[in-house]
């Protein structure tokens, strides 16, 4: 009898074990609500807008998720997001070929991440503080370098622009990049040795250490990949808008944390999925877009994201409790 009850519960347990469940349900509800309010919400043109803008937030959020699973934060992603396209354009304007300039700037962004990681790990400073400082430093440098007059991309940047944000059939290249990077990070986290070390490092640092995992190297990788992806996403936005703005990426550090948390990533580390963050990203973009479609004041955006973040965590905790009872 007991076995029969357990067997009957199994599908429910399997469904609840699906970590992206709560964010997926929230996304479906939000889409349905906006479709009800604004009929054009699901039109092809509007979906194209959402799909074109989501990769910028999503790519940064994917890196932030990896770092959060390691048990760390990076508040400097918005500044790196602004810095990368401006530095790329500046280097190109010196006559450096677009591809080389792009790779050099990505390496530079990776070095910013490495510096964040080095300072955090070497001096034992909370990453929240290190990257808060880095956020101000790099934003200040962007403003200093541009002097309020950001550079423009030279015509030689066009082929690179095509590769990064050009239209590829039905979709934009940025969406393909986003999909590819998400898949790569999923493989890294779920199917590689290093991924297991990332979860172990964030889940219980000392346990990971005594099992011989080089937790410092794992965290350093998290910082590097986060800055590198923030830089890449910044270049994506720079090419999409065709204009470089020193204030780009302001607030994105909190949006990416929200996207990760809504998608099931835990602030204390050790738990998270990149696919959950993809759903969190689309949820944020859908709300942003839906409010415009519904002609609601833009101020509502922050209200909704704040509420959703809290609701998502409450739902995730409730699901975990329910699962324990069912088991």
């Amino acid at each position: 009898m007991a076995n029969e009850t357990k067997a009957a519960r199994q599908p429910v347990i399997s469904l609840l074990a699906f970590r992206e469940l709560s964010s997926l349900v929230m996304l479906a509800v939000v889409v349905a609500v906006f479709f009800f309010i604004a009929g054009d919400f699901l039109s092809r043109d509007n979906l194209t807008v959402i799909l074109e803008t989501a990769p910028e937030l999503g790519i940064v959020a994917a890196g932030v998720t990896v770092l959060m699973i390691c048990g760390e934060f990076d508040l400097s992603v918005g500044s790196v997001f602004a810095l990368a396209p401006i530095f790329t354009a500046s280097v190109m304007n010196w006559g450096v070929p677009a591809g080389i300039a792009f790779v050099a700037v990505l390496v530079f962004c990776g070095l910013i991440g490495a510096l964040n990681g080095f300072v955090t790990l070497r001096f034992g400073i909370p990453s929240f503080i290190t990257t808060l400082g880095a956020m101000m430093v790099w934003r200040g440098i962007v403003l200093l370098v541009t002097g309020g007059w950001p550079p423009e991309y030279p015509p030689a940047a066009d082929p690179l622009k095509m590769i990064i944000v050009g239209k590829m059939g039905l979709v934009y290249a940025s969406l393909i990049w986003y999909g590819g990077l998400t898949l790569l990070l999923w493989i890294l986290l779920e199917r590689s040795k290093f991924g297991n070390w990332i979860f172990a490092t964030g889940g219980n640092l000392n346990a990971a250490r005594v099992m011989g995992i080089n937790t410092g190297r794992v965290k350093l990788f998290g910082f590097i990949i986060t800055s590198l992806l923030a830089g890449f996403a910044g270049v994506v936005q720079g090419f999409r808008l065709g204009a470089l703005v020193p204030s780009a990426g302001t607030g994105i550090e909190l949006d990416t944390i929200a996207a990760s948390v809504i998608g099931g990533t835990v602030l204390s580390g050790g738990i998270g999925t990149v696919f959950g963050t993809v759903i969190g990203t689309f949820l944020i973009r859908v709300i942003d877009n839906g409010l415009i479609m519904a002609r609601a004041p833009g101020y509502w955006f922050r209200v909704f994201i704040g509420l959703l973040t809290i609701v998502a965590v409450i739902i995730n905790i409730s699901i975990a409790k329910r699962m324990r009872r069912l088991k």
Partner: protein
Amino acid sequence: MGENGQLVELTRIQKYFGRVCALENVSLDVGYNEIVGLVGDNGAGKSTLIKVLSGVFPPDAGEIRWRGNPVVFKSPADAIRAGIETIFQETAVVDSMTVMRNIFMGRELVRQVGPFRWLDIRTMARESMAALELVDLRLRSPNAVVGELSGGQRQGVAIARAMHFKTRLLILDEPTNNLSVKESKRILDFIVELKKQGISSLFITHNLNHVYPVADRMFVLSHGNEVGVFRKDQTSIEALTELITLK
């Protein structure tokens, strides 16, 4: 077994933290197929000594011989590679990870095609279940999250990991702390079972009632100093209690 001498010998180990002497010329040895209890009050230096042996801290002076040869463990990974596995009180397992991922943590199995390597999840799952059977731990799935298991089951997962990887010496740091009577008995049974399978244990505890029934020898530490080493037939729980509380 054809093995002479001791499995591990620590000779005149010293460890200082700044000016504080945590261990002063402490010597300890564990034989093949032997259970040694390491006992002492809080602050006796038990944890420091096992951290030296497991590669967490380097000693300031002294020598470690492993299976007769002098060794230097620069990290826990060195000690694990040699065959010494430590189950620390709070760091035995990662609660947020599955049983399978905990068992293979740091020693994951991979499949490789050309330059590409990925986790061999199927084999890891199968071997995890086999490892759990070694300690008579029956879980429905290797994908059970460790945080949802009882304290005894968690220790069981860590012990199963040590057995699976053919550890020669298992160091257990207060393994029965915060466990129920039933679960404590289960852990003690595991330790006896390990000995039958040729795995020696160094059992660190301040609960003499737990260690005395299973240990072959007792090693007493107090304030970073060696108080004595006793075969079980040479001592009693009362005598050991007196030694621990004397200084």
